[in-house]
């Protein structure tokens, strides 16, 4: 029995997606475009790695490898034929907060593909034979990560910034021993506990009418009944009180990776736009902002030197990344320290702020060009409650940031004396 489609419908200017909430709490965001005869479908469940059960990191990730390998009414082979016959790849991603199933299909295949995805979300059967094969893949992937200096440095930095089992400090794929021991029952329990209509945001963008999408979503998700999952509260990590430094020797490698960072702010923080602009000036604008100018352009030390800001539900990190020859590690770290100190001490210039702001505002149409990119943007809007007119408001939000705000954000987010730093590669600590 299909229940009524929507209890509330809102629209807005700009991208103007349609948002509907089914009476079971599932959220639908839809936007019709006509540039290509294709549709992007992005289903996100609030069931990311931060929701992994205590002592079982990697649960969400392993489920993401097997959730699409059988449902109550479809075998793995059936699903394989349905997808492959239409040229479709399902991309499963697990971030800290979201478990996402994403694909692009031809517009003519939309109904069949949407139905299949709904079945996968609601009725996965997690066959034992499939689980055994996918576990082998995950274990191999973890072994590959262990041999990758960039991954080792980034994961170790997160563990330093978010210690004591904090959900942001755990490896999303988990560890080999935990993955090996995870059972079908544990995966099914995770699905039962975390997958519910109230945790779902379904986004559809492409060459399909919004009314049709709404009807289809109501038909496929409307009758789904599960109790709402318990709300997850992620605590803020304690700020670092001193500088921390970890070296992971990997003497078989040609180059060292540096990950250097701080716990900064949540996405909901009023300083978010100032922090975003500060980070753009510091480590992104053009080819890596001030960091790229110094380390790549002036000193020729690295192919890349950039920073990224991952403001999240809880305060997230600002991370500097660089890949350098072992002989240049100390000089590169000193250069990062110097740029951090300069940003805190002197702040940005008015020209830098104007340049970064002009770039970020001007880049909005490019960021919203493809169906997949719009779908991803709408998921971010939904996760952080940014509003349906967020794309239209963004220029104003960035425009309201003053140089004082940016410089205050630098003082709030950066401090070389309390930086955390990981070096992974052919480098031995001389200290």
């Amino acid at each position, binding site marked *: 029995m299909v229940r009524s489609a929507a209890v509330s419908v809102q629209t807005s200017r700009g991208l103007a997606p349609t948002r509907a909430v089914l009476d079971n709490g599932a959220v639908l965001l839809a936007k019709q475009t006509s540039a290509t005869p294709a549709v992007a479908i992005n289903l996100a469940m609030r069931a990311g790695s931060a929701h992994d059960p205590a002592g079982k990191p990697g649960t969400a990730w392993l489920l993401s490898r097997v959730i699409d390998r059988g449902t109550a009414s479809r075998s793995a082979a059936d699903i394989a034929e349905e997808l492959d016959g239409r040229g479709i790849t399902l991309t499963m991603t697990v971030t800290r907060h979201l478990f996402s199933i994403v694909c692009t299909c031809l517009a003519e295949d939309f109904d069949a593909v949407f139905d299949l995805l709904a079945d996968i979300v609601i009725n996965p059967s997690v066959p034992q034979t499939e689980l*055994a094969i996918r576990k*082998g*893949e995950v274990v*191999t992937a973890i072994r590959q990560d262990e041999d990758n200096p960039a991954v080792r440095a980034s994961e170790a930095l997160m563990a330093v910034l978010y210690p004591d089992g904090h959900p942001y400090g755990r490896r999303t794929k988990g560890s080999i021993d935990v993955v090996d021991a995870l059972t079908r029952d544990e995966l099914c329990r995770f699905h039962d506990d975390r997958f519910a209509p109230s945790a779902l945001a379904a986004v559809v963008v492409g060459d399909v009418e919004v009314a049709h999408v709404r009807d289809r979503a109501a038909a496929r998700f409307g009758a789904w009944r599960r109790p709402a999952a318990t709300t997850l509260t992620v605590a803020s990590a304690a700020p670092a009180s001193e500088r921390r430094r970890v070296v992971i020797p990997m003497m078989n*490698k040609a*180059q060292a990776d540096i990950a250097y960072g701080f716990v900064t702010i949540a996405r909901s923080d009023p300083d978010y736009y100032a922090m975003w602009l500060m980070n753009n000036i510091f480590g992104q*604008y053009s080819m890596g902002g001030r960091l790229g100018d110094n380390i790549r352009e002036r000193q020729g030390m690295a192919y890349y030197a950039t920073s990224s800001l991952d403001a999240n539900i809880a305060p997230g990190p600002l991370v500097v990344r660089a*890949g350098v020859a072992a002989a240049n590690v100390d000089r590169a770290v000193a250069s990062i320290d110097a740029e951090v100190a300069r940003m805190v001490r002197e702040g940005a210039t008015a020209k830098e702020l104007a340049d970064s702001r002009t770039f970020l505002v001007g880049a909005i*149409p*490019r960021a919203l060009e493809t169906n997949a990119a719009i779908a991803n943007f709408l998921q971010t809007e939904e996760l952080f409650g940014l509003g349906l007119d967020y794309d239209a408001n963004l220029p104003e939000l960035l425009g309201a940031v003053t140089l004082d705000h940016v410089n205050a954000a630098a003082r709030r987010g950066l401090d070389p004396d309390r930086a955390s730093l990981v070096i992974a590669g052919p480098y031995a600590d001389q200290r």
Partner: protein
Amino acid sequence: MRETTLDNGLKVIVREEHAAPLASVWCWYRVGSKDERPGLTGVSHWVEHMNFKGTTNIPRDQVKGIIEQYGGSWNGYTWIDQTTYLETASRDAVDRMLFIESERMASCLYHPDDCESERTVIISELQGGENDPDQLLDQELTATAFKAHPYRHPTIGWLSDLESMSRDDLYGHYRRHYLPNNATLVIVGDVESDDVLRRVEQRFGGIAPGAQPSRIRTIEPDQTGERRLTIRKEGTTAYLKVGFHGPAARDERFVPLLVLDAVLTGAKGLNLWASFRTPPPQRSARLFRALVEQGLASSVSGALLPTEHPYLYTISATARSGVPLLSVEAALVEALNRLRAEGVTEPEVVKAKAQLKARLVFDNDSVTNIAHQLGYFETIGAADLLPHLPSRLAAVTAEDVGRVARDVLAESNRTVGWFDPLP
């Protein structure tokens, strides 16, 4: 779509796409790592880096921000047949983008200090690549499969060449190859064709043509027996790669081989700039079933890339933790031999064509990707392939696929590479 050639030989392609207020400009040069001689390997890629470091009319300190002020992004890449540069930005920036590319074609500076500084950046790029065992194996496999054709050396170059190359080597290479009559300019987006063509003439019309660069004449001799290599190095994971000499993009066997690759490992699409971002649909593909579903490998992939000269069709597999490479290779060879003996089925061909049809749509979802495809195929001398691909795909039969399998997947045509990790 409009196509024209200026008096100085510059080929220009303009396509209007009005879905978004954007434009993408790509300038393509027919020079890649196959145009390099021993001692100068990597020069094309290094030249690409130098061409972002200021020109006569764009001072070094004004490069940063020149396209960002229009919300734009810029980039470039070098591969075996081509070097290309792009900007995608607001449609208002079209003239600015054309200005940048005209300056890049004729007026780059090559300051000696910048050349030295970039030497270490490129060596860092090379060493970052060597951190990845799969990339290292790919480089060694290619060098083993080719013994005469310059496709054998890596685009980034050999380390000793990067350490010894001079500013004059770089500048000489730039001057020889960066000519209007060796380039294709592509503009796609929310533009008006006549207006754009006028601006192109203003910006590029005054650049003098030059002598056409000499082209390599070497043809790789037929391979007469299997070649093998093994890299033994500390690591955690074993990798297998098998490369077969394959057809160039213009070769009539290319499209049937594209279908064969889809049958074996799932269809990829044909956009080097975009296709790799989405893995292929491959759950029912033959090699996925033979290797991954049997618990021998954690992944398998195929690569058939459109190239000017005959290159490689490569199959790669990551051995599942604890599985010996010998077992992975045996299962792979058995699957390939069965296909050579029995051919492919009609349903497999139907599915492969459906996959390719979808992937060709997905390949063209932005002005950037559309422009890439128009310039890429023009530059490898296969501009006709793209518009005719749907009809050529439709005409492929199971017999065609079986024939190309017997031809290309022969034991005597393959090179087998192992990355066998030491603990």
